[in-house]
């Protein structure tokens, strides 16, 4: 098992940073925070000197660090402000065709639900992979993911957005 050298890291960074940023941005809902978290995740991965035994292993480690950083940040903000700081949905029901409305509905979910749904649907990860990315047990992921999907379904239903494509 070798260690990551600078060239290998540059190639890894080029392949993963964009997808990681999209994931983090969609979960935290703020570009500036997303940039900080992505940078910190890469730095922590490098400082941890993770063995470079396969890109998937490194990627999983990176996502786990980023996910933990997002949870920390969210907890910190919630503690500071005494409330959930995630964006609220406006009173007017959004139209499904509207991108901003889609983003707002997604932002209304809890950060952990957003992370789970993103990893499952966008990244196409299995339960085992999600468990590894989030640093939780596989059995727990099944339950959490089911609840996240149910909450999203309820949310879509309450907004009148539960349409079958």
């Amino acid at each position, binding site marked *: 098992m070798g260690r990551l050298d600078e060239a290998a890291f540059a190639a890894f960074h080029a392949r993963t940073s964009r997808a990681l940023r999209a994931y983090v941005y969609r979960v935290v809902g703020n570009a500036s925070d997303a940039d900080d978290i992505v940078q910190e995740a890469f730095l922590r991965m490098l400082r941890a000197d993770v063995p470079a035994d396969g890109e998937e292993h490194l990627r999983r480690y990176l996502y786990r660090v980023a996910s933990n950083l997002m949870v920390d940040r969210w907890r910190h903000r919630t503690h500071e402000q005494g409330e959930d700081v995630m964006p609220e949905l406006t009173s007017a029901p959004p139209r499904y065709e509207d991108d901003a409305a889609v983003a707002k509905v997604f932002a209304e979910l809890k950060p952990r639900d957003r992370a789970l749904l993103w990893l499952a*649907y966008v990244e196409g990860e299995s339960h085992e992979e*999600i468990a590894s990315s989030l640093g939780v047990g596989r059995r727990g992921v099944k339950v959490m993911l089911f609840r996240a999907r149910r909450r999203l379904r309820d949310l879509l239903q309450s907004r009148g957005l539960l349409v079958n494509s």
Partner: protein
Amino acid sequence: MTEWFDLNEVDENAIATFMSRVANLRTPKPETRTPDAAQLWCKAKLIARWEAERRAQRPLDFMQPIEIAGGLVAAGVLLYLSFLA
């Protein structure tokens, strides 16, 4: 791909459709100039070096107050003895 359970097909399709919309949402460009891979690599190496230096310095930092306290006690004892003499 993840295997699903418990939601009906209509709900599942609606969620999948919604998530595909979420996946295609535009991600804004970085607000500030974020460091590239080479800068991150250098920064990580620098931090690792600082941490190594801090680790090496720690025993010295730990001993310093003990040395000062020892010196003060010794001075006190000497002063006491000089009064007795």
